[in-house]
């Protein structure tokens, strides 16, 4: 039977948890989802590329963006990608406590990133530079906000997976899910490379 529900393991595989194809097929399926998500981001990037210079007399990126602040934000996400990778290595060595510890660090770094982004949005909106101010700011909040929403979803997923790891241990299905979570997390860091280059760095150049 090929109707493989994402939440339940195919009985054929469940009977044989070491079946090498199960986790690999799930990882490939998840990769295809990531690629379609990339198309979503491409649409938002294209919107930003068209509207990014329509200031409507409002502030430009050069006036709004604080490079050192964005650099710290970027480093938080990059370090969280690093600790996520280390968690995968610990998972490979079946070290449950190390996996939990490294995921906790990843979660904290990710929360720091989101907190900084919310802080940036809040101060911009408080200054009257919210998404309604100009087409540029609408596109800015859509693009950066879409990435932020993905990171927030990843953080919730990470908290759930920490619970599963703690309760169920590093069983084959849990390892497969943790691996897909790490794919998602690294993917978001790649999208962020595009965001900070196109939005922040090019915005400061002009």
């Amino acid at each position: 039977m090929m109707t493989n529900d994402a939440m339940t393991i195919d009985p054929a595989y469940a009977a044989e948890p070491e079946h090498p194809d199960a986790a690999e097929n799930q990882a490939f399926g998840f990769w295809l989802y990531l690629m379609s998500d990339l198309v979503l981001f491409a649409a938002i990037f294209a919107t930003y590329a068209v509207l990014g210079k329509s200031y409507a007399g409002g502030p430009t990126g050069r006036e709004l963006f604080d490079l050192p602040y964005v650099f710290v934000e970027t480093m938080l996400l990059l370090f969280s990608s690093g600790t996520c990778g280390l968690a995968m290595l610990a998972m490979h060595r079946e070290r449950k406590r190390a996996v939990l510890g490294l995921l906790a660090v990843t979660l904290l770094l990710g929360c720091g990133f989101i907190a900084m982004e919310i802080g940036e949005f809040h101060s911009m909106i408080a200054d009257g530079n919210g998404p309604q101010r100009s087409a540029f700011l609408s596109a800015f909040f859509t693009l950066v906000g879409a990435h932020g929403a993905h990171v927030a979803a990843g953080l919730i997923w990470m908290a759930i997976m920490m619970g599963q790891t703690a309760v169920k241990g590093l069983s084959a299905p849990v390892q497969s899910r943790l691996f897909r979570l790490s794919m998602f997390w690294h993917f978001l860091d790649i999208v962020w490379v595009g965001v900070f280059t196109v939005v922040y760095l090019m915005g400061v150049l002009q």
Partner: protein
Amino acid sequence: MNGSQVNGAGASIGGFKTYATGFIFSVVLTAAAFAVAAHEALPRPVALSGLFGAAVLQILVHLRCFLHLNGSSRSRWNVLALLFTVLILILFVGGTIWIMNSLNARMM
């Protein structure tokens, strides 16, 4: 591939060295990109190509070291799917910029 292993879940992951190399390269490339943007004196075309160069390099480093796309037969379909998505992406973003700039120029 160099130090890549197969974990219990059947997925291929790199060794510590792969992650460490990827991480160090990413930090250096990010810092370089921010330095280029903060450097006021650089002419715009030079700064732009520097930024894009650093971004493309860093994305390739991430794909290879963190997402383990290394040309092995295991990652073949992932690479094919990625290449197809990149084609869509170029058509999508490039086409949008082209047609909108053209419209903009005609309306002036």
